């Protein structure tokens, strides 16, 4: 059996090596695929903090992914059309600066997660799943009907946004950017999990009554986890929009929320690099099986079924022989 610590380092390292190899052999499309893995992985790492540690099965994380995407889309759209965004007395210039866009994406998603979390965390179990789904769908239909930003057709951004010192249009450089953010998110999650907050949150998932009787508020712990989670998924959304240079309502769709959960289950719920493994498998299948048939999701479904039936801890559970992160 492989120690989990090894997998934790090997998976990001593997992703990095594949991208570097693709760069040397001059295969930009493979680099784009690895970038996709990094970004989807980042989105699912975000969800994993809420779902894996906090036990919050959110079927509405596309809301934050989409908000991040539209934060990028709207700011970049106003920059490329040289038309400032006017909100009543407030006039905001568009921007092509990634750091600014990221901050806007993170703050917007965090605030949305706070609002959605406050309402959703009054419920639990199936009701929590349904209410988060409802919020996600509300934003989806809102974006479909928001004709100022393309409505159903979405928004095209002609040039990738800028990051100081980096030419983001070069695939390997943009990959590097996404990869660093993914690694930072992984470090953040690892520290969170080991911290006092992580200990309390993890206990709030397993025994909320216990957490209350030692003087802590389990709902508040989960709410904060949900906000951190939404913010990271929002950041991933902004990167995803930049990768495709395109934003559309599909970023808000519940399919995406479901896919993020699937990524986590494939990799291993609550496992640090589980979402990255899930994202890598997902992108690989989408690319190879998707080249053979448009029904490639059947293959994904078969893998998911196999994992749920035979390996409780996802791919990492299978490799380490341990069903849970703490077993």
């Amino acid at each position: 059996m492989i120690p989990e610590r090894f997998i934790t380092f090997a998976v990001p390292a593997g992703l990095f090596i594949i991208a570097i190899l693709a760069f040397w052999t001059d295969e930009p499309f493979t680099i784009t695929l690895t970038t996709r893995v990094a970004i989807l992985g980042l989105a699912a790492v975000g969800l994993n903090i809420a779902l894996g540690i906090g036990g919050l099965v959110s079927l509405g994380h596309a809301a934050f992914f989409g908000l991040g995407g539209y934060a990028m889309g709207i700011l970049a759209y106003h920059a490329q059309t040289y038309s400032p965004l006017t909100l009543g007395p407030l006039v905001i210039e568009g921007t092509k600066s990634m750091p600014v866009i990221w901050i806007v994406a993170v703050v917007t998603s965090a605030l949305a997660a706070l609002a959605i979390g406050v309402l959703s965390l009054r419920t639990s179990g199936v009701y929590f799943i349904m209410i988060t789904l409802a919020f996600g769908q509300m934003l989806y239909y809102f974006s479909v009907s928001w004709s100022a930003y393309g409505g159903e057709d979405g928004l095209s951004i002609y040039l990738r946004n800028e990051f100081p010192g980096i030419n983001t249009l070069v695939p390997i450089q943009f990959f590097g950017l996404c990869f660093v953010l993914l690694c930072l998110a992984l470090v953040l999650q690892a520290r969170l999990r080991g911290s006092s907050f992580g200990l309390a949150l993890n206990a709030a998932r397993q025994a909320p009554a216990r957490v209350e009787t030692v003087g802590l508020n389990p709902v508040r712990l989960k709410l904060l986890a949900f906000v951190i989670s939404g913010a990271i998924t929002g950041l991933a959304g902004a990167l995803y929009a930049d990768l495709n240079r395109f934003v559309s309502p599909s970023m808000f769709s519940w399919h995406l929320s479901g896919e993020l959960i699937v990524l986590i289950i494939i990799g291993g719920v609550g496992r640090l690099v589980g979402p990255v493994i899930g994202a890598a498998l997902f992108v690989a299948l989408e690319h190879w099986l998707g080249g053979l048939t448009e029904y490639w999701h059947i293959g994904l479904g078969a893998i998911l079924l196999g994992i749920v039936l035979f390996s409780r801890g996802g791919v990492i559970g299978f490799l380490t022989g341990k069903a849970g992160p703490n077993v």
Partner: protein
Amino acid sequence: MSEHLLETRGLCKSFGALKATDNVSISLKPGEIHAIIGPNGAGKSTLIAQICGGLAPDAGQILMQGRDVTSLTTQARAQAGLGRTFQVSALAMEDTVLENVLLGTLGASGHAWRFWKNASNVRDRLDQAMAALERVGLEKVCDQQTATLSHGQRRQLEVAVALTLEPSAFVMDEPMAGLGAEGTKKMTEFLDGLRDQAPILLVEHDMDAVFALADRISVLVYGQIIATGSVADIRASATVRDAYLGDPA
């Protein structure tokens, strides 16, 4: 500072027509074990839930050290010094024994809002957690996953978590539940020594344990306290015998 560390005054709670708690006034003095006994369905769990904050009473007051805590949440009462153990162990089963006890120290110190520093590396809290584990005799299994503990060990861990709060009063819901003869004996001895640290409001079905431990016993039947007194008083009381104990063999 009041003489009573924990007190209820005229507590009432009804579910529809059922009076689950009917004008209950009980108190807990320093250094004592006050046992609540009563047949199934007498309203013991409902009473405990109101004292600990899980259920709001319809009328009456709950006081801790003379302070009215009736409107406080479970968390606030825990911070005010109420240590509780559950009838059915409520522990983080996937976590290690030590992590469960560390959780108690976090709550007690209000330090759950630290996001970076490793929770197991804080010397004071680790010492406090290990001290609590040593008191209940679980220090050797501190790195084991809680789910691997025996039932008896889980009951001990429940108490250890409550200990980390350094409570001014304990509320224990059937700490002997499911323990074998040997386990009950050990737990009885342990609780006997614990009363000097903080008094215990003890809900328990095991009559031998109750009679061995309690300084005072209150008998709850149909939501009402029908008698309160020493072990001898309760044993001698005809009312109690009729309502609950049956004829002594």
